[in-house]
């Protein structure tokens, strides 16, 4: 068969992660290959072109555009100060002058004779990008940014809201099946990445935000609680820019779903360690999923952090299902259940909807063996 792979979410105690840190416009890179960087290290800087302010000369002077010739006192490309004279007409006998002055400092970018409008480009706005994750610079993208390589634990969630944050991991629930309730939000969770179990409600989220937690990582949330947290209903699944007090990462999905034991155990082992988290999610082919990165204590510059040390999964080998592959069901009626592939019947099978599809037999953790469409499982990647 052609390459039919089942993508899964990565949950690894030791992975090499490359994060591309790119400026929106060309600028200056401030670090070099091999430099050790901290999450807040500024790695590149640029200047965004300032806003272009349109001055409606003809309109302000009460004239038609073609009558303005000779009245404009500046030329394209000229720098102007705030208040500087841009255009002037004299009335009868030199009296009743009408003047238009520059509303701001900048450079005259254009003057359109058709409209009688003039554009002043304001001073550039400086922007900086930081390293986001502790690691080493593995590649410099000339004038654009860098690639930072980090070695450590790497956990992908399924969905998140809120952007990049940093904080120490703090386990708030004793088991992955526990609900993260308000009484489980510690007093001293400011700046921490709180790890819950199966569910978090709006009250607990608000309490964590009130206590200045950096992020909450949990198995699931109810749709109505997410709406309450965001203040609106989510439409298209492109997130990361929400104006929310803390980043929320779901590892399993919507509803009360115990966090996968493997994920929870790994996070528990990372208690107290510094993490970089990002809730940004884009669900498309080649999806962007939310992430938790916990770099190892020492930045091992010589242990494979060079460019290309973690390439894309090779076509035809990554994510292939086989007997014994650990999987999770991702749709009803077995949604959230864990198990392993028991068997992969080659022939398509008629399922409950009447559709004839390729299935697999899944051995659940309670020992039952059930039939599930292959499209409805994901591999638990290591």
């Amino acid at each position, binding site marked *: *068969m*052609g*390459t*039919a*792979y089942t993508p899964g979410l990565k949950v690894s105690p030791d992975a090499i992660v490359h994060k591309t840190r790119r400026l*929106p416009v060309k600028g200056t890179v401030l670090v070099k290959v091999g430099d050790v960087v901290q999450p807040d290290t500024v790695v590149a800087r640029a200047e965004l*072109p300032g*806003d*272009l302010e*349109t001055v409606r000369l003809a309109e302000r002077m009460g004239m038609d*555009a073609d009558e303005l010739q000779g009245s404009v006192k500046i030329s394209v490309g000229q720098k102007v100060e705030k208040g500087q004279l841009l255009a002037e007409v004299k009335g009868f006998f030199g009296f009743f002058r009408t003047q238009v002055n520059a509303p701001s400092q900048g450079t005259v*970018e*254009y003057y*359109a*004779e*058709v*409209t009688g*409008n003039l*554009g002043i480009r304001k001073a550039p706005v400086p922007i900086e990008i930081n390293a986001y994750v502790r690691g080493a610079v593995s590649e410099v993208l000339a004038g*654009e940014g860098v690639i930072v390589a980090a070695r450590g634990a790497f956990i992908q969630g*399924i*969905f998140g809201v809120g952007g990049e944050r940093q904080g120490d991991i703090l386990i708030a629930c004793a088991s992955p099946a526990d609900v993260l309730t308000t009484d489980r939000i510690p007093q001293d969770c400011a700046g921490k990445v709180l790890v819950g179990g199966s569910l978090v409600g709006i009250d607990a989220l608000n309490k964590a935000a009130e206590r200045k937690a950096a992020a909450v990582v949990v198995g699931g949330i*109810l*749709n*109505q609680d*997410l709406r309450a947290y965001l203040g609106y*209903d*989510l*439409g*298209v*699944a492109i997130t990361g820019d929400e104006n929310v007090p803390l980043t929320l990462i779901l590892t399993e*999905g*919507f*509803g009360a779903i115990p966090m996968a034991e493997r994920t929870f155990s790994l996070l528990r082992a990372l208690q107290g360690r510094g993490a970089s988290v990002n809730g940004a*999610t884009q*669900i*498309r*082919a*080649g999806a962007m999923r939310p992430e938790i990165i916990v770099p190892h204590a020492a930045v091992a510059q010589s242990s494979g952090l060079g460019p290309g040390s973690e*390439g*894309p*999964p090779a*076509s035809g080998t990554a994510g292939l299902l086989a007997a014994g592959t650990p999987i999770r069901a*991702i*749709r*009803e*009626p077995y*949604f959230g259940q864990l198990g392993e592939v028991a068997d992969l019947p080659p022939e398509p099978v008629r*399922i*409950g*909807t*009447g*559709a*004839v*599809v390729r299935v697999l037999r899944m051995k659940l953790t309670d020992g039952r063996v059930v039939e*599930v*469409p292959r*499209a*409805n499982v*994901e591999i638990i990647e290591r």
Partner: protein
Amino acid sequence: MTVRPEDLRLVLATDCGSTTTKAILFEKKPEGWRQTFRGEAPTTVEAPFEDVTIGARNAITEVEELSGRRILDPAVTDTLKFLTPAGDKDGIDLYVSTSSAGGGLQMTVAGVVRTMTAESAERAALGAGAIVMDVLSVDDRRKPHERIARIRHLRPDIVLLSGGIDGGTREHVVELAETLLAADPKPRFGRTLRLPVVYAGNKDVAGAVEALLKEHFGFQVVPNIRPVLERENLGPARAAIHEVFLTHVMSHAPGYDKLIAASPVPIISTPHAVGVMAEEAARRRGIDLLAVDIGGATTDVFSVCKTVFNRTVSANLGMSYSVSNVLLEAGIDNICRWLPFPADPNVIQGCLRNKMIRPTTIPQDLSDLIVEQAVAREALRLAFLHHRSLAVGLKGVQQERTISDAFAQTATGESLINMKDVSMIIGSGGVLSHAPDRRAAALMILDSFEPEGITELCVDSIFMMPHLGVFSSVHPDAAQEIFEHDCLVYLGTSVCPVFRKVKPGAPLLAYKLEGPSPAAGTLLCGALVRMELPLGASAKLTIEPAHRSVDVGAGPGKPVERTVRGGHAGLMLDGRGRPLVLPKSAAERVAANKRWMEAFGLELPEK
């Protein structure tokens, strides 16, 4: 390279969609052109692969395995090299492709007046297969800085700038160019690429606009899309958009240089190819026609009415990536109203959110499938509403009116779509093409499009209209032959009377069917009745209205006699009225949905 249709015997076509790349083999058999094998694989335009040809190769490999024919040169693995020409066991004669990967062609358009030049610009872009991200106009009630912020936020592939008839307004057009300059938007692909801007406005200010923009953008001028108020001239702008899409945008998308090099025929956007087939089907039959493609991210609607072709795309209405947006736009109550069982809206919303975050999953049990089909009804309904708002005559045109026109209150900008004139509706996309029971697809189309009069309902068997659309640019007759034989699956014929002031349960019409399974009876107001009329069969249908307001297409109270075509759902008599109004009480709604599904022979969930 010139391709001679008479030399073709085996043609391979791919469609690189946003989720899946589909490869299809067309073969010339003794009995005619046929579609023979199909393979598919995930699209690989985005990370981690970032090379569209990997997915295409995987899909083609599946066709090779199924057909037992070697198609790709095994010695070349880093690009698509085909064995040509076709031999007995190896090779093909031609490779063609369409693409909507990476989100398809995304455009921002601008015009002076929203309902005139801006609307023409929108139609030009949509007809060229684009997703229109925003329509800017001088009268769009946004302040200049708001327009600038919006343009900056969007990252279109192409901007279409129009405005003013030739000899008309100058200032407003140049102001739009100034706004564009101030925003300085960046293209999605190719960081070194200058964003292409196609100018199709008042020719008198083309020079002034060019002077403003040529340093910052990839600028080109084409004839005005609205040279005079009474006429649209969309062709040159559409041609320029195709050209720019191929030469600038796609060549910067990952792997497309190799895809373009693999075919002697220009790659076209998927919706454009579907539009070509829809337009040709309507032209050959001489009918008004609707077609819809409901995908994971977007829903495209095509209409050919009174020979005018229109296409719209609802960019955020779809069954997987965009399913939450359907929920948002339609509202949970509107989705739940199509369910034949009581449901907790919060549970349904949770299920749909989970579909959004795991978009490739499929329903495993019946109730889950029915929820998806309810969402599809709302996505289709909203997409069709959007289409009707754009498939209109030109606005702002002065018309000579007679006294009768004045009394009839006719206005410019009327919808071109008269449902009684629409003779065929073609559905496409997974939820329709791959519905486990094709009768369910018929009911979805009936509920969401609300056809009137007598209409044939079809689905695209395996979503091959894009492949046929691009193939038809080389061999239109072969493409049509495959379209009729292998692509169109007839669901049957719907008969939907329009009426008023008829009480529920009262007789609407008497019908008589003469054919393989003769039948006669009375359709009551509010009823939905289905009769077997097998695929490939036809029958004579006679209808006699029982009320003077009942109109089945010939006019109120007029009898109709027609030959009707059968299909998977047979003959469907829909006496529910137009517009279709569902009962207000939840219990009655559930009962009505149950009745309708039972009428169509559809299985109901046990719980």
